[in-house]
Every structure is written in C-alpha cells, then in structure tokens.
C-alpha cells in the first residue's frame, strides 16, 4: 500500500529538502523526522517513500533508520515517554522514576530498556524507553513526553495526568 502523505506535509518536506543544495541525501533524517512526526513511526512504506523522494536506494534509508535511536520502526503509545538513564539523572532517581512510570501507566517494567522494543501500556496510551543524557543533568531526573521536556520529576501522577 502506498503511503498517503498529506499535500501540506509533502510541501513542508520539499521545502526542507532545499536546505541541502549540495546533496539531497543529506535530507534523509529531516524527511524521516517529518514522516515519523506524522505517522508516529517509520514503516516500510515510509522508507520507500523517503527513498523515492530523495532518489536513493531504499537500503540507504533503512541503514539510517536502523541506526538512530530517535527513529522508530514500531508504533509507540499515544504519548511516548523517554526517561534519562545516565549518571546524574540516575543519582537523582531516574530508575525509580522509570519504575513509577511503568507502574502507573500499566507497563511491564521488566522488558524496558532502550528503544527496541517500545514498551507499551495495555491501553496503548503510553509507551516508554530509556534515553541517554538529555543535557539537563543539573535538574534530574528528567524525561520527555513526546516533545515536552520535564525536569526534576517527582510526582508521576501529576506528570501523566497532563496527557489525556
């Protein structure tokens, strides 16, 4: 099935490709970000669409997709959470934060590591993964819910209740 990219999104992607006048291939992450933002993850169809758009072999897109933790090949929950796992946040309690998020969102804690597989709550509302240092080590523990950044997170109920 061909990917249905809305015309406004395709227009935005085409504009972004012009930011790379020397080589269209440079736009691959940019195109993937736009597609992931819209479709929530990068499917095979998305890879083929991006490849055609950038005049690349699909394998050239796939090798990028499969490398970067920021690009997902499976659907996350409605709200995807990334908890910083690295030293300063861990000292400030990020593993406890992860435990608590999993418990309250109804996600099995045991399978949660980085990225793959995306650990999903049963109702599909939340998914969670560990991320490495999010560059806010002085205000740990920190996490991101979708594109929102949260510092010094202690009250998980208050955090999750912002997302309906």
């Amino acid at each position, binding site marked *: 099935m061909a990917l249905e990219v809305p015309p406004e999104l395709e227009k935005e992607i085409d504009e972004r490709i012009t930011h790379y006048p020397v080589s269209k291939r440079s736009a691959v992450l940019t195109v993937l970000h736009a597609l992931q933002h819209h479709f929530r993850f990068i499917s095979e169809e998305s890879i083929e669409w991006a490849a055609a758009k950038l005049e690349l072999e699909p394998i050239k897109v796939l090798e990028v997709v499969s490398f970067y933790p920021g690009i997902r090949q499976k659907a996350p929950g409605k709200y995807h959470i990334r908890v910083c796992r690295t030293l300063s946040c861990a000292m400030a309690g990020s593993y406890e934060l992860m435990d608590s998020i999993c418990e309250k969102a109804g996600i099995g804690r045991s399978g949660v590591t980085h990225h793959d597989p995306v650990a999903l709550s049963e109702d599909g509302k939340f998914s969670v993964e560990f991320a490495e*240092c999010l560059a806010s080590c002085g205000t740990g523990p920190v996490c991101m819910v979708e594109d929102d950044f949260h510092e010094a997170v202690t009250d998980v109920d208050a955090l999750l209740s912002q997302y309906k």
Partner: protein
Amino acid sequence: MSQIKYIAGKEPHAKESRVVFKNVDREGWDQSIETYIEDGGYEQQQKAFKMEPGDITEEVKKAGLRGRGGAGFPAGLKWSFLPPNNDKPVYLICNADESEPGTFKDRYIIHQDPHQLIEGMAISCYAVGAKLAYIYIREEFPEGAQILETAIEEAHKKGFLGKDILGSGFDLEIYVHRGAGAYICGEETGLIESLEGKRPYPRIKPPYFPAAMGLYLCPTIVNNVETLCHVKHIIGSGGEAWSKTGTPNNTGTRILCVSGDVQKPGYFEVQVGKVTLGEVINDMCGGLKKGRKLKAVIPGGSSAKVLSADETFKVGRGDDEKEITIWDIPMDFDTLAACGSMAGSGGVIIMDDSRSMSWVINNLNNFYAHESCGQCTPCREGSLWMKKITDRVVAGKAAPSDIDQLDAVARNIDGRTICAFGEAASWPTESFVEKFRDELVADTNPELEEAFVNAESLTAAVNLK
C-alpha cells in the same frame, strides 16, 4: 544598555563572570531579535563585516580561544588549517549535539539567546569564507530547533543573513539540522557523515581532518555552540582585551555545568582558572549534602577521568610546582590535564560518600555500550564487555579477577580505534579501576573465582539473565 537584572532566585553567583550567559535568566529578556538588537545585538557582526576576514581569525588567535566542545583545541589555529588557495566551497558547522553526559550549557544558549549564536556564527562564517552553514542540533531539543529556525528567519528579514549581507557582498545561509538521538553525532566526523545522510560512522584522521576534507569532502570548520558565541565577544572587545580574562593559555570565561551530590546543582560562567573546584562545590553549589563527604569528581563530562577526593595532585612547573588537594584545583584546561583528567566539555559531576563506585562505573559503561557506533571491534566489543562485567559486579556475581579483566578490556580499546570515543569509553573504567580498585573488588565474590576462571567470565558472550 539597560541595567541587567536577573530573575529572582536565578541570579548569577558573585564569583561568576557572565559573558556568553549574560542573557540567561535575565529579567525581561526574550528570544526575539528586537530584544537582542535593543541590547546591542548584531553590532559586532556589523563591525566584523567591515574587517578583513583574515584579521578576524587573527583576533581569535590573539584571544587564545580554546574550543569549549571537549578537546580544548585553539579555535583560531583550527581556522587557519583551512587549505590556502582553496577553490572548493568552505562549510561551517555548529556542533549543538550537546550529548556528553554532565553537560547542559548549550541548551540554555539555544533556548534563551539564539541570536547570540547566530551572530557568532555569521562572524565566524565570514572569517573562514563559509557561505553555507549548519547547526547540528540533537533531536531531543525540539523546541530549541524551532527557536533557532525562528531566529534565523528574523535575522534574514533584518538582513543579517542571506544575500549581500550589510552591503558587504557576502552571502550566507544557515540551516538547522536535527540529529536523531545518537551520542556519536557529537564527534565531528560522525556528525559530518550524519549530515551527509549516512550512518554517523566517524572517519579516520588523517586524512579526514574536517578543515581539509569535511562535509562533502570540502574544507569544513566544526565548532561548539559556546565557542562560536565567544567569537562575537572577541570582536566586541578585541582579541587582546578578551585574552586578559581567565588565565594565561586558558583565557576567557567558560560555563561549568555542575550536577550530582551538591546542594544546588547548576550552571556557572567563570573565568577559566580563576575558581577552584572547592569554590565551585562549596560556594557556588552550596556545599555537599548534609552530613556527606566528597568521594569523587568527574571534572569535564563523563569521558573525563575521575578524580578521587583522597588523591593529591602535582601541578605547576619548575619553581611553581606544588602539591594540591582536590579542593584547590583551579578549573582550567592545563591544570586538569596535569591532574590526569581533562576540562572537557565543562560538565562537573560530584559524587559523595553515599555512592557506590561500582554502580557509578556500571552506569557509565551502560552509556558507552549503548552509544558505540560499532565500526571498530575494540570499541564495539570492548564497551559491551565492560558493561557486562560491571553488571556482574553490581549484581554481586563477579569474581575478583573480573576487575583485572575489566581493566585489561579498557586498555585494549584506548588508542586502538578510529575515533576518540574509544578513549571516551575506556578512560572512565581505567580511572575508576585505578582509583577505586579496592571498592570494586570488595563488591565481587571470591567464591566465584574458581567457577569463573575456566568458564564464561573471560568471554564477551556471558549472559547472566
């Protein structure tokens, strides 16, 4: 210029010297170009664009500005490595990947003072002749990327970017490029591969020094966010005057990011070498937590070798040579190198006596095992191996000889890889084993020795779960 006031509770510490962070947490400040211009913004660009490009590089050299991204390499010198008589396009890339654990300074520049960075970049591009520049920003700064794009658009409208800037005949476009969550994209050649749309596999140097063969194999300058901001201030005050701040060979100000076991973690812009680690901990950060003692400090981002609170350090040369404690280390490039570590990215991680060193090194080994790009066998296998050994130490399932093994694995990565990630990954382990060996060994189980020596523990493939 109006009197500068800061948001209540976020005032700079008395020992700070705010230059690059002047507008961070400033009352009434916002990211708009109007606010920036009202405060004298883009004046330095106008001044610079009347200068000869080569003279700007000279000022940066005179200033003695050393890179703030990690290696501390002199910026002016780097710029002068661009090949003479070059007929290829030159590119400039701002490294806004900010991914070294413990580092959180570029975040505030990008989010609160985007035009300072753009002005610094515009001046730097003019100096090196780059007409196309990218800001490589980590994916986890979505708001930052948006703020920068808005700022670039504003600067365009005012004629500070685009065609024939300020009537100088110089054209410049800056674009924001978002990464995708990989630490190795902070390494400059990995960054370049990533920007070319490939896996971010670092390139081998030589021959691939970016200044000679960088983006699209053209001469390319890669500098950190903070470094590029300083260029603006160097033009403002002149290189000579700028070099009067800080200490000789360690000039200017830099931002220290302090995290871990202190009362008030945070960011502090200080004159390089003018404050000691003790002042940072006790004065700026309000001291250690109640009833706690200092145990260890990682002074320059997680890749810097750890300092133990019990060591003494020989610093200074000749008649100036002396032995100092951890509290008296001046926070500058040369002294931290003399202490066997590095100033790195400015990320200072403080650990008190409640911390298990096995747990700490295991946490870091997890990071490096996850972030190795996988190109070189010693790094790919070794970083995972170190993680697995320290997983076992933490779980009480390691034998004492595992600590020797851990050290040996680290020492077989260091110096044997394509990029400096190899050192970044092995230095933490080497230094923790060197300085906290007894503690690591105490977390192992001698009874396991015999069972392990013949079997799994000497292979990378151990799977305990």
